[in-house]
């Protein structure tokens, strides 16, 4: 699931000539952290979205194969069509992937540098214990 999630987020946020995407970095540490820290509902919704993204090329492209077996161009067409699907819940899948993927993408130091924004310092996560 870890590899499939990383691959899927990389397809939703692929690199372009101008911008690095999530396929340019190893998102597995991010996904592991999320799996460790996020509540069950968030994790379950993410895993379900990854699975549905991969199982729906039949609906978008008429191809009875999982997305991870398609060529890069076809996966891209699938991602785009899914995000514009007439079925609301399918659109929500992409929204979930964008919401979670966006957290990793927007924090990429190389991307922030491109936009002339400072890299984020580490979040301490501290709170008052007494």
């Amino acid at each position: 699931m870890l590899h499939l999630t990383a691959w899927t987020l990389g397809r939703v946020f692929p690199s372009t000539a101008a911008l690095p995407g999530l396929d340019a970095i190893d998102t597995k540490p991010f996904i592991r952290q999320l799996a460790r820290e996020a509540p069950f509902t968030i994790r379950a919704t993410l895993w379900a979205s990854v699975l549905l993204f991969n199982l729906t090329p039949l609906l978008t492209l008429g191809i009875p194969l999982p997305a991870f077996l398609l060529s890069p161009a076809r996966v891209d067409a699938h991602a785009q069509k899914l995000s514009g699907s007439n079925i609301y819940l399918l659109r929500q899948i992409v929204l979930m992937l964008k919401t979670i993927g966006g957290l990793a993408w927007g924090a990429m130091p190389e991307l922030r540098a491109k936009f002339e924004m400072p890299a984020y310092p580490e979040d301490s996560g501290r709170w008052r214990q007494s």
Partner: protein
Amino acid sequence: MSGRHVAFQEGAAQAFDADYVVAGSGAGGAAAAITLARAGFRVALVEAGPWRDPEDYPSSMYGTMRDMFADWGQLVAMGNPLGKDAIIPIVQAKLVGGTPIINSAIVVRTPGDVLADWRERFGLGDVFNEASIGAKQDQIERELSVTETAGAGMGPSGAAMLKALIDRGAEGHAIHRNVRAACEGAMQCLQGCKRRNKRTANFLWIPELQNERGGIVLSCAPVDRVLLENGQAVGVTGRWQHPQTRQKGATFTVRAKRGVLVAASATGSAPLLQRSGIRLPALGQGWRAHPGAGVVGVYPETMDMHKGASQAVASLQYRESIGIKMEHLSLPMELFAARVGGAGQTLMHKLEDYRHCAMWVNAVRADAVGTVKQNWLGGVSVTYQPTKKDLERLRTGSKMIAEMHFSQGAYKVLPGVFGMKSEIGPDEVHLFDTAPLDNRCYTWVLSHLFGGCNLGKDPQTSVVAPDLHVRGVRKLHVVDAAAIPTTLGVNPQHTIMAMAMVAAERLVGA
């Protein structure tokens, strides 16, 4: 007279005593607690979330969802998602100091028409009126350093919106915020202002309550139930919860001689009363909001949403005529990525324009009424959908915002409406007129929430009587957004804080 702070605890049950206990330390809870503490009462403030100091606030949006948002922002308002209803995210914080720590710090006085309406329809004039609310709002503005946004706080997107409003002949203003003039416009309002420029209770009122007024603060301490004995509230109980692992800790009980004030927010207070065994016909009913959605303009020059305050400019021009409040709202890149349409290469090409994008939003003074309740899984369910009329309001407002973007030189607009073209040019603004009236086609977000324990005279339609006590129970009060019986059409924190202070002061005098 120094008090105590007790964070997450394991092991044996712990008990505390106070004059008053306040459950929830956000806009309403903190304001009520400090008022009671200054009057000499020993107050216990019990908060579900942890106490974070500004130095420890996160910078990234991942950290913000993890450390600041209530349960990672997973609460949503739903109708029937298999039918025609949308899933709408509800944003709130779970922290000592509550949602004001992550909010945009916009301070707007309670409009006179709202108070007049409450007087006429709900009989609230004796308690909440221009004089009582106004006096507390003066005090809040002084104590929280409310100033008009200027200088670096304005940012290019805010400045463009202000000019667009002026060019249109519409009212527009730099927002008043509980932010010191030193604001550097780092666009970190949502993550919490690490520079302490945003003045919030977690480093002002709550330390005062603990260090100078002998108060007790329990953090990481979600209240499970209000303790009721012989028709009277006598305290609260719950179990500490670790803010990272969510593991349950020891049981706590706080007994309060004089009374219990509930301030767990519009999504928390009604469920808390329900869990406590209170059964009133109106409990959990009458839930309202200002659903909001934005329109993005793409400009030839950089608009750099990361510069300036998260929100710097607003317009009240259409509050009464249409039922919308327009605001500039800058989003961090992480959230902007989810707001922009498409996926894959199409999405990325749009995101290449991030520095050239400005987003302006409409907060709708919605007619929609929903419910909030404790669900069988132990969580909270909110049922709420904007009405057709609300969608029309948004559509009208979105069209105006698109016109405003084009008036300032945007070369395209991203309407953010499914069923419309994903990008429109200056000649295509009319397409908003036929945009679908379907909630599933808009990226609604709910952040101004009201009701569930509505104030009023009629026992059938209200939970809290005009003297602020919960009907049928002695010494139990609701002092947060949950008690507000209507939408306001303006940002609510100032009203919530002032109402909580007025309510607390009445207890002092009683």
